[in-house]
């Protein structure tokens, strides 16, 4: 059977076998002591039209959110992505390039990622960023491990208002090593309980999210004052940093987050972007690839991967992390988005998201759905829902509404609540649709 991706003609194969002095390809494998126990149960090869049609059918068994009114965030956000972003990011010289080990033929990659690092530093107020990790959750876990390495203390404290799946990943990474994860609760304002934080005692790091999972904006200044010797790790939502004060300004030691919000299509949360930034003094403890600026032999300003001695290919068991492949292409999409939106665009997107959320919250309040927390919120908020809401939430889909997330799934104590989200794409008519569907 011939394949478009495999060039070998019968003549090619014959010539190549000849040059090796053998008659069949099987001879190349003759020293292998094992054979297949049976023929693998796989379908035969297919042409691209058939495969496309089959997969298109499967994709249509998903409900695409294309024409939906979407009020669900919780870590993955639907935004307007300008056409230019994917048009440029999907250029094959980016998509089919490898890790930029050979700097001289990878300046496209290196410069794009250097610019990405700069943009992340600007948003987060930190001094150095790496060129991506897998997602916000693993970036957080690695930040915790980094703080443990630096301080020598073996426990971390994390706010319960940090994304539930991030806390799960944090526990997986830390508890298996014998490190302890202590959870700190929230108060009626939806923010970190400072009392519980004090009672928790010494930790390598204290971790909060900003805005937190409930959409409430934590007072990072107040928290920083209570930290004593713990390092300060902030999980930040990058778009909100267009208008919120940067965590770096409050003395954060490490800032992590999920970059999907920066122009990456939702993709079931699967084309994620782990943001990771810290202070220069910690750079040798930081995981991930870092791009630096330098010169070439003719004095041109060029870029290269630096401080590779932290990484696994040099340090092996002593590396800062095992990370090798990262999410560089997602970082590219994010930096093109940030380049397109610019400082004004990010601000506008953030403010629209904020405004729509507050308008929605007022409308819900009018209809008797009360806000749960008293603290200031950004573009997400928690409100109380009747018992039958989860059922209604599933039915809303028929009206092309993805409603606020029922929280029973993540917080048993908030099973009578839902988490609403608006981004810059939400209009008044979307909100009215939702109001009707809420009953």
């Amino acid at each position: 059977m011939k394949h478009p991706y495999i060039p070998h003609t019968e003549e090619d194969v014959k010539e190549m076998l000849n040059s090796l002095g053998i008659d069949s390809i099987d001879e190349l494998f003759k020293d292998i002591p094992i054979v297949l126990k049976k023929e693998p149960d796989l379908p035969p090869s297919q042409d691209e039209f058939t495969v496309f049609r089959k997969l298109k059918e499967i994709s249509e068994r998903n409900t695409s959110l294309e024409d939906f009114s979407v009020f669900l965030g919780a870590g993955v956000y639907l935004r307007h992505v300008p056409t230019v972003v994917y048009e440029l990011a999907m250029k094959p010289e980016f998509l089919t390039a490898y890790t930029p080990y050979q700097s001289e033929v990878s300046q496209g990659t290196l410069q794009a990622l250097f610019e990405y690092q700069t943009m992340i530093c600007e948003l987060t107020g930190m001094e150095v960023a790496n060129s991506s990790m897998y997602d916000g959750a693993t970036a957080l876990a690695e930040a915790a491990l980094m703080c443990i390495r630096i301080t020598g203390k073996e426990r971390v404290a994390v706010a319960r208002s940090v994304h539930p799946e991030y806390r799960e990943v944090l526990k997986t990474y830390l508890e298996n090593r014998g490190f302890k994860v202590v959870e700190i609760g929230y108060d009626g304002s939806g923010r970190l309980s400072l009392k519980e934080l004090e009672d928790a005692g010494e930790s390598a790091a204290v971790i909060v999210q900003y805005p937190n999972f409930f959409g409430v904006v934590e007072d990072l200044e107040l928290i920083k004052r209570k930290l004593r010797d713990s390092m300060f790790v902030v999980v930040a939502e990058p778009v909100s940093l267009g208008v919120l004060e940067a965590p770096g300004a409050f003395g954060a030691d490490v800032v992590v987050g999920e970059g999907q919000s920066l122009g990456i299509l939702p993709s079931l949360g699967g084309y994620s972007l782990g943001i990771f930034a810290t202070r220069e003094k910690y750079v040798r403890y930081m995981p991930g690839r870092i791009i630096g600026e330098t010169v070439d032999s003719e004095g041109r300003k060029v870029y290269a991967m630096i401080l590779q001695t932290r990484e696994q290919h040099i340090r092996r068991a002593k590396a800062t992390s095992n990370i090798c492949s990262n999410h560089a292409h997602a970082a590219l999409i994010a930096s093109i988005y940030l380049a397109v939106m610019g400082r004004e665009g990010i601000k506008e997107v953030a403010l629209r998201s904020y405004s729509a959320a507050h308008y929605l919250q007022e409308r819900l309040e009018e209809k008797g759905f009360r806000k749960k927390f008293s603290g200031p919120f950004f573009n997400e908020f928690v409100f109380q829902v009747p018992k039958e809401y989860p059922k209604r939430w599933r039915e809303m889909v028929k009206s092309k509404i993805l409603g606020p997330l029922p929280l029973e799934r993540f917080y048993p104590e908030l099973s009578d609540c839902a988490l609403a989200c608006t981004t810059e794409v939400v209009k008044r008519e979307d909100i009215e649709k939702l109001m009707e569907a809420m009953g």
Partner: protein
Amino acid sequence: MTIFEKSKAGRIAYRLPENDIPTRELDLPTHLVRKLPPELPELYEVDVVRHYTWLARRNYAVDVGIYPLGSCTMKYNPKVNEKIARLPGFTMVHPYQPEETLRGAFEVMYELKKLLCEITGMDDMTLQPAAGAHGELTGMLIVKAYFEDVGDTKRKVVIVPDSAHGTNPASAAMVGFEVIELKSKEGLVDVEELKKHLNEEVAAVMLTNPNTMGLFEKDILEIERITHECGALLYYDGANLNAILGRVRPGDMGFDVVHLNLHKTFSTPHGMGGPGSGPVGVKAHLAKYLPYPVIERQGEDFVLKRPEKSVGRVRSFFGNFPVLVKAYAYILTMGKDGLKSVGDMAVLNANYLKKKISKFLPVPYDGFCMHEFVASAEKVYKETGVRAFDLAKRLLDYGVHPPTMYFPLIVSEALMIEPTETESKETLDRYAEILEAVVKEAYENPELVKKAPHTTPVRRVDDVTASKKPVFRWRRGT
């Protein structure tokens, strides 16, 4: 020029749609409101397009030419897979929308899992890990969970060959294991040496097969026997699976845990370093430790399960979904016959190229290789002072990408070459010609090679200053 230097106040590259919700001022305590806007550039759309187009043109890529990096499997990335992954049913879905609206996604993941289990000879699999190293971490967590569960608390050591990829010991260390690196013998695992180290403190032996020298570990059955005999588990690093597709399955070799690299064997694009995907397969006795959620079929429906003794969650949401879609499309396209051809042609190409290259660059072992081989430039270095590094830089002038350099660590001045099955005989002939020409230059004009590259967009990059006086970001005024 960086994109920041192209900024001009007042320019915009975006226009948001009309909106009828009035924008309101932030009602937050002032100290939480940004005083200085982030210094992101202000550009118009044409500048953005030209900037990234210019950057793209400064990159080498698989779509440009041969990229024979050892153990990276830089095969062609099929375009139809991109088209499929961009279908709105796959891109415009939120991980938390009601499960009944995600049947298509679950079907892709479940079916892919089944196909990969069949290809590898394993019983169950998680598609969550985001990369090979992440898969190794997950695998090591499973190993640890297993021994804790059966009450075997002495197992603190993981053994890896010294030819192993750096992520192997790094992943084992990240989970808290102590790592012992075993000295290879003639490029292979030294079984006698392994025997000396196997005892009840060993939790796992991590192997790549074929190994990073491109050699099939012929003693695998013996290795499997003695590893299991001392109660340890056997882990398979699937980076080199391309060589044995359709002929041998790691499950049949006796491996308990396996990770795959979808961005290698299964054609998903490398994207300048990622995202890839590193699914982890296990034999039945370890399925209860898999990370959650695991997707099971129940009649027409799919359910998400949490294995009873799961190691936990290893990333948010479901895994690198678009990458999974592409890999699924690839397997359906290649099918049983295609995948067998992949393995066969990958190995044929490597041996063909090895025969040609070994005429001027010694390959430190006899016999056939698998899908890759290692040549050594040590003789050239000793006779001319030109190193593997310099040869690689000179190759760039000829418009091709060099092989992997200085890996595996056990060969001096190593050049590790993996052509993959998607390169034609003509391309391989040309590559061998070019490499031969460069080696000749090393003898006849060493300075030319030592100062290479000469015709690339930039010249030899000063790595030393880059790391000595690191500049991590652009700043105004620099």
